């Protein structure tokens, strides 16, 4: 498929076309992502796996509008974000993407409820009442009794569930998760994955998970492998099942 071929945009949540990321190191330069082309259909759960230094996090940063590609195009929900400036990228992140991180990254000074309400407060056109929506999402994730707790008063699994609720605050079509279970024990990790599956089931959200844990990857619909900034494998688990 070529970038000009937009016929399937309606069904594709994330599209990367010949994406490169080159960074300067001293006098020289280093190519981290080398011409990746990838389509992620709406509602799909995709795992990106690969060894350390393979470019997983960089790719996720590019797909999530945290960084811009040196070459190539990236479309999110049909919008080309490749040349966007920081101002517009921020709006895209607020409206189109939810992020879940390995270290949860909740704002330590805010309660669970306020953490979840935060993206709605900063939306240009908020779709929900911040507190109502936050309460609803926390209930969905089984955290209704922890709404007024500060992050440090919650366990790792609970923090991650609050982080997922925050990621869903503005009802984004795409959820990007960077090692979401990396800082959790197996049981909590599984609970988080179950929560993601449930979300996909109920909201048809596209979920992209970067992980090095194959047992997690195996629970996704599709797994792509990355090595030296290039896609080396793309397999559909559903088909295998």
């Amino acid at each position, binding site marked *: 498929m070529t970038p000009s071929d937009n016929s399937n945009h309606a069904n594709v949540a994330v599209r990367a076309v010949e994406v490169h990321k080159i960074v300067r190191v001293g006098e020289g330069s280093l190519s981290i992502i080398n011409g990746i082309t990838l389509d992620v259909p709406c509602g799909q759960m995709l795992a990106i796996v690969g060894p350390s230094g393979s470019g997983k996090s960089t790719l996720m940063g590019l797909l*999530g509008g945290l960084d811009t590609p040196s070459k190539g195009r990236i479309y999110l929900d049909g919008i080309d974000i490749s040349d966007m400036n920081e101002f517009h990228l*921020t709006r895209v992140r*607020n*409206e189109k993407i939810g*992020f879940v991180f390995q270290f949860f*990254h909740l704002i330590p000074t*805010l309660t669970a409820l306020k953490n979840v309400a935060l993206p709605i*407060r900063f939306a240009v056109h908020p779709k929900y009442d911040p507190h109502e929506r936050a309460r609803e999402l926390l209930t969905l994730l089984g955290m209704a009794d922890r709404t007024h707790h500060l992050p440090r008063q919650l366990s790792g699994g609970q923090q991650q569930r609050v982080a997922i609720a925050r990621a869903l*605050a503005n009802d984004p079509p795409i959820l990007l998760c960077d090692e979401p279970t990396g800082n959790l024990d197996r049981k909590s990790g599984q609970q988080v994955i179950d929560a993601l599956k449930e979300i996909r089931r109920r909201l048809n959200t596209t979920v992209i998970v970067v992980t090095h844990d194959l047992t997690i990857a195996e629970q996704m619909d599709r797994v792509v492998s990355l090595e030296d900034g290039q896609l080396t494998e793309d397999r559909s688990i559903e088909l295998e099942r």
Partner: protein
Amino acid sequence: MQRLLFYTEHSLNDLRIGRLRTLFAVLCIAAGVAVVVSLQTLGDMMMEKLTTNLQELNRGDINIIPPMPGVERQGDTEPAKNAGLIEPAGAGAFVFTDKGIREIERWIKERDPDAVVSYRHQFARSPLANAGLSKEGQDETEPVIGLVIEVKDVQGNPVYPIYGEIRTEDGQLLSDVMREPTDIVVSDNAADEHDLKIGDQVNLGGAGDRLFTIRGIVPIEAEALTDNFVTTIFGFYYVDLSAVPLYTDYDPSLVTDEVDGNRYAGQLYVRLSDTDPEQVRLFAQQLQNRYPFVNARTTADLRDRNSQIATALKNLMLIMGLVSLLIGGVGIINTMLVVVARRTVEIAVLKTIGLQARQVTLLFMIESVLMGILGGVVGVPFGLFAAWALRGFAGQVWGTELDWVFSSGAVIRGFLLGIIITTIFGFLPTLIAGQVRPGNVLRPNDTQLPSTGIWQSLLVMTVIFVTLGLIAWTILGNGISPDPASRWSIVSVGAVLALSLGMGGAAVAAGRPFLKRRPQDLGTMGKIGRYVLLTIGTLFQTGLQGVLFFAIGVILIALVTTHLTVPTVLGALIVGVLIGLLLSLNGLRTQPSLAMTMGGGLVGFAAMVVLGGAIGAAMGWPAYEWLHKSNPDTWQTIVDVSMNIALVEAALILVALLFAVLWLLVELTSRFPSLGLPDVKVSLRALSSNRWRVSSTLLGFIIGVLALSLVTMLAIAVKRLFEISLEDTLGGNVFVATGFTSEETQNSLVNVLETTDGVHSYTLVTNYITDFVELRKADGRVMKRTDLIAVIGRSAGGDLKRTQHLTNFFDLTVGQMDGRSVTSTLPDKNFDEGNRQLNAGDAGERVIVITGNEAVLAAGIEAGDILVLEFPSSGEILKFRVVGVSDERLGDIQSAAGSPIYAPIDAFSQTRPNAIGAVVDIDESQIGRLRRRLSTEVDYTFVIEAKRLSELAQRLIDQFTLLPFLVSILTLITGGVVIANSVALSTMERRREIGIMKSLGVQRERVLSMLLIENGLMGFLGGLIGVGASVLLLIQIWAWIFEGDLTDAIPIGTALGLMALCIGISVVAAMLTAWGASGEKPLNVLRYE
């Protein structure tokens, strides 16, 4: 609104969680706010004191002042002098004669029969006659000022003071305790100083062996706030007018039915029946029209004058307070940088969920504003408390008890300034916060702060310059604006600078991507352009660094050697360029791209400065032409604000230069050998890794140290200098003054001095009051006073204020002269070629030596001129040939130690001197014996030791330096808080490092010792630079004022003491936070940090 609430809540939470970090940052600002509030409150107390009870301060509705230097008057003094209404009293001042007093009083009573007139008298014209008081049976005369007052009028009503009342410490009125002519009242400071008690019997200078009894003690405030500031130094005693006949030079033959020729008045006080301000003003105006030689000062005039003084004082204090606040700002900038660095991931998260850069900036801005508000909340009560506690000190300076005044203005000013300074100092870190990239969220261990970027940096600089410039403008107004003629050029220069800064910034911004691109990505022309640019840039950079080091070298050489010669300047130039070259080479070797980019940027900047300059000038000129003519007021405001902004720019450039030097010093210090001690090594490394913070903290601390050490050492050095130079100037160690001026007295005095053991040499000195008649130049020109004033005016470059000052100084210089024995020791003076000291051959000749003070030099008096002077006591007019104009850089102090003009003692034919004295060089051990012999063999003498005079000078210096000392202590405290803040930040940042060290088995004491060594070193550096700079400045001041080396006067002990104080402050400040940090459990730190 919801967002604002979020910002506030989030910031408050962060401040709460920050605990120690927040505490110290808040304290930094609180210390500055406290200094501003306390100094402003003190200023307001002073304002209150000076502008209320004006009738009491003026001693009447109108205070009539005779002609004297520095006091404005409408007309000439000559007719009044000829009419016998006033008489010269020396040093250019006049007193009202009894005839004058009565005539003015008659004139007043004719117009307002119910008016009351009172006087502060002066019973004799000689300055010696009413100086001094000695306790019964003691030889030593204490220099206490005598004030002759009329306690009651002829009807027995108290008339001094006309308004208000003066009560003794036990609550009695002057009229109640001063019943007999021999009853006196002394001021509390004189009583304390000389151990005087009620009931003590004393001799008064000029009143022979008559005993007076002390009947009461009054607060110094009774006179201090009127025109008698000098009483705060020496103290005073009141003696009644009825005591005048008891004085030795009272001449009954001068008393007629009409006048009493022994009575003189220094000032006349009038209470009018109608005290309506307009009526008082009209009355004063009429009085002044009738007697144009007087200054009739109304309460409104006094209020204006006092308001001006108090406002100037308050502004000065505000500036001093602002310095503290700016030092505190260093703490804020450091704290905010650490806050941002520690929260880069959090910022990145906020950006990933939709916060724009400006929203992040606003979030952190609110946090720093909240810190400013908290600083204000904490600082204001401290400031008020400090003002309350310090009002006693301040009262001592001004000689009055200050009443407590709650000044809402001071509180608001301190509070707002705290917030403004916090905001502008927090601005840079908050902009940095906005620049954090959202991608950082994926690399949580990367806490490297992003750079601000060219535009943001320019914005910060502009905001800082403009805000501080506006603050400076509100304080200084048009104080630093140039005269109208040069305005256009200065504003054009300002416009050029501003524009070139902007254009330069644009050039760098535009040039950066070009320079960043790799050569292989460029075409042939691009490659050539790039290399040309880089080569020029590198050369330019080398040159710039060379110039920088050259300038530093020259300044250092100038400070150390006090002389600049061609070889030293050339040496500094060569060394500077070599260092610049080395640095550039080193830069090229290690980071070629950075060095080249910088160089290229600089070239772009330089080119744009030239271009911007041309455009700026082209725009500035029409702007001036148009605005200046169409709206001069707006133009004036623009000029004033621009000048203040330029002042701030200049000050900040200096600070930046100092910062750069400190940065280098910290870098050099961190490379010191650690002598194999691991603790020292870790401490040195820590200094290096936190260079920015260490340098900025040092900068704040050094300003405090510099202020304190300069004030302290200058005071000590001036005192010591006074001790050294006083004996040289006087030509001996004892000064003898006599009450009589007859030939017999002179002979008795000579006899005692000739026959007392231990007298090495002596010089007889007679003192005459003189009036300047004319100056006859060698070329035949005859110059009257008005001609000389014109000359002075020309030499002052048309500056009216300076002309007035120099004219007064000139009047003072020629207002009295000494006769000196030319065969004995003469004052130690320097003479240029063509000028000389008096010598033995001059005996009996009318030749004089004149102190070459600034007024004499401005009037163009030189050797060979003939100075014609009139002696009012005899009416004689004598001509003196000037043989020497001495080379004096310190005219004021030296003329105070003797008259600035002297001639051979036997050159004054019939004129009787106003005073006779002698300067004696005598063995210390024989002073007592000389004093005893003089008191028995020569009538009415008193002996002052040079040491004693210098003690008085020292007290004066102490009094004047008390306030600066106080302020510098407060500034240093702020510096100490900034250090404590820096240590707190440093330990917080290094919790993990401390945890690792402890987990490796390093004991708490060693961790503590490392932190203390590190901060002790910082204190040492601060002390070394601060104290060292003040020593160098002192040497420079010495070199500037005097020729020759006076390094003896540098108080080395004090300097070392101050150094120890600096180390002490930094170690204590470090201890405050390091103790807790070193006690952390390693597991806690490693797990949660």
